[in-house]
């Protein structure tokens, strides 16, 4: 169990770093793109060209939002800040409360793994569908632009290969993930984070079950540990009060 906790902490730290990078990149790209867009109102030539070169920005921002959503959701699992209606756990005695935590954790873990499968299926459909703009006809029929030789690409007028995507595609292909389009490649985060969330819930459920089996002292210790950890999180938001395990300070498991 201690090993899992350590892995969970390290994983959460990396998720936090990823969030900071994605969020700040989004802020930078969005502000730069908005600035350039507003300059085009004055018919400034270089701004017009720059805006055309930044067609990817909108797509990046949408994908970034999706990444933030699921990285944040995974981190919310670590901090036990998911939104839930915890009416019974709020009033239940300690033993019943931990029995409910155990059941809720395991149930949510299993459901979330199911969700990971559902989202992986949808993601696979999107990944395997080759968009027209990435298709070309070679000597042996239709092929992906990333599979074309430099000579074949050179023969196409006004066309350049999406180099970064082609590298990512090769890497993904090596681990058995087909990626025909960059848009769909970004979606892989969703099933991946659902797996992380599901595992976290499963382990939280098992932890609660173990504490229940060990008796009152173990449950009290776990309560204190959770309070201390959440106090650190909440104290940073202008001295907000600590939340209960399995729920937030707001009584709905929501993040206050």
């Amino acid at each position, binding site marked *: 169990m201690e090993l899992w906790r350590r892995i969970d902490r390290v994983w959460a730290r990396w*998720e936090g770093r990823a969030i*900071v990078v994605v*969020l*700040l990149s*989004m*802020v930078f790209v*969005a502000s730069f793109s908005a600035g350039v867009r507003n300059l085009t109102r004055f018919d400034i030539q270089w701004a017009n060209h720059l805006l055309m070169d930044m067609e990817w920005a909108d797509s990046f*921002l*949408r994908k970034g*939002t*999706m990444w933030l*959503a699921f*990285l*944040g959701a*995974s*981190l*919310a699992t670590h*901090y036990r*800040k*998911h*939104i839930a*209606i915890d009416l*019974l*756990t709020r009033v239940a005695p300690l033993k019943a409360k931990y029995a*409910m*935590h155990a059941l809720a954790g395991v*149930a*949510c873990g299993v*459901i979330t793994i*199911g*969700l990971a*499968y*559902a*989202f992986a*299926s*949808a*993601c696979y*459909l*999107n990944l395997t569908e080759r*968009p*027209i*703009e990435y298709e*070309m006809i070679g000597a042996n029929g239709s092929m992906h632009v990333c599979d*074309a030789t430099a000579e*074949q690409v050179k023969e196409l007028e006004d066309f350049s290969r999406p180099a970064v995507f082609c590298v990512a595609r090769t890497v993904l292909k090596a681990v058995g993930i087909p990626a025909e389009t960059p848009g769909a490649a970004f979606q892989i985060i*969703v099933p991946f984070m659902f797996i992380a*969330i599901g595992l976290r*819930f499963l382990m939280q459920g098992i932890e609660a079950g173990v504490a229940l089996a060990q008796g009152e002292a173990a449950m009290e210790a776990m309560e204190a540990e959770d309070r201390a950890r959440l106090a650190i*999180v909440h104290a*940073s938001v*202008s*001295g907000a*009060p600590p939340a209960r395990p399995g729920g937030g*300070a*707001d*009584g*709905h498991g*929501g*993040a*206050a």
Partner: protein
Amino acid sequence: MTIIAIGLILLAFIGVPLFSLFGAAAIMLFLSLPEGTWSSPAIDVFGQGFAENPSLMTIPLFTFAGYLLAESGMPRRLITVSRAWLGWMPGGLAVVCLGASAFFTTFTGGSGITIVAVGGLLLPAMLQEKYPDRFALGLVTTGGSLGILFPPSVPLILYGIIANLNMNKLLVAGIMPGIVVVVVLSIYAAFVGMKTGFVKTPFVWKTAWQTLWAMKWEAAIPVVLLAGMGSGILRIHEASVFTAVYVLFVEVVIYRDINIKRDLPRVATESMTLVGAILIIMSCAIGFTAWMIQAEIPQRVLDWMQTLISSQFIFLIILNVFLIFIGMIMEIFTAIIVAVPLVLPLARAYGLDPYHFAIIFLLNLEIAYLAPPLGINLFISSIRFGRPVTYLYRSVLTFIAVLFAALMLVCYVPIITTWLPSMMKSDDMSEDTPADVARNDDKLAGQDFGMTNEDIAALDADAGSDEAADTLPDPVVDAGTGAAPAADEAKPAAANAKPAKAAKKHAK
């Protein structure tokens, strides 16, 4: 089906997070359909309803800005300014609390931070000035959700995304009703203040200007946002970027309240934890609402309602009771995600303006925050101020009555809401709604995926008018009526188009 529903409800009551319950319901319901697959509830999440929705990015950016403000010295500055400008009024400090809470909640989205940040500073001061304990507690608890009608509050934006309304119009629609709510509460506060012999802070121009000058950078945010969006310079997502960058600059460089190394990463992760908790529910609920639409649940509810109620007046009363109940058992973001697709068709059928209905919806949730026995603000106040929840029940009753009076005013005098949006020209509607984008994409592809003939006819009839966005089908309705077929149809369409396009790329 009934056993599954009961099982999920039981799981909800023992604290299973809502996102997984919606996800489980969506998977099971889709698998029960003959054409349903595991991927059915997830397909729409990668489309216009979620991942490709251009307005969605405003939620993390506004939330980030709100958390930065909450973490900075802004609450203290805000109270100083409010006191200098509003402290002379009857009910002085109580009115200050209302004004400061409304301003603060606008940026923090009613997530409870206001009670902790503003209430935590003002409650001791109010008790010191001999305000009745119950009144002061009720006031700071009410303040926790007071600003959600003002732009750019996150619940307002989330509603706009789910209901597929024109965002600029919706943001403007909330201003007048928001003012009505604050004014009605201020009148009550003034009445209590006069009765209890409040301590008056004399109005001194010099002090007032000095305090405002000290807060000028933060006070400018709503002014610049409204001016930018009203003039069309800022689209909604640009407004969110502007707010995030501006607040970051002001708090890091000018006020230096936020340390870029120590505080920024923490604030970013904390704010995105909240965003993640909201958006994962949205992503899982999309599949659930898609099934609801496919199973024609809203239509059945509508048919049933119409056999019982024919008057808009009665409908509004029932709607208010329903929404307060929903808002009480669910948290605001979940209530919006789940209830909007269900009740929006009803509101349309009873002839309610979509913006008017949006504000009624949100105002009800604002009241639900306080409604005993489960209102979310009651528990936050109880924990923060160390009072029993039952004591808080009695503290907020009068405030609920006052808010209900404001709700009746907003409900039955629609011009309060519709006046400002109606002043906006169609040129001001610079925001491309997801439906606009979908329509353009579909037309470009020569297909009208996911839309019925009636929808297309309605779109064509309304093309070019500023009402187009209002009459479009919801993204969730699209998803429900045609999402799965759309995905299936897209493939042959693309396959047909490929030879022509591929011919251009034919390598010699």
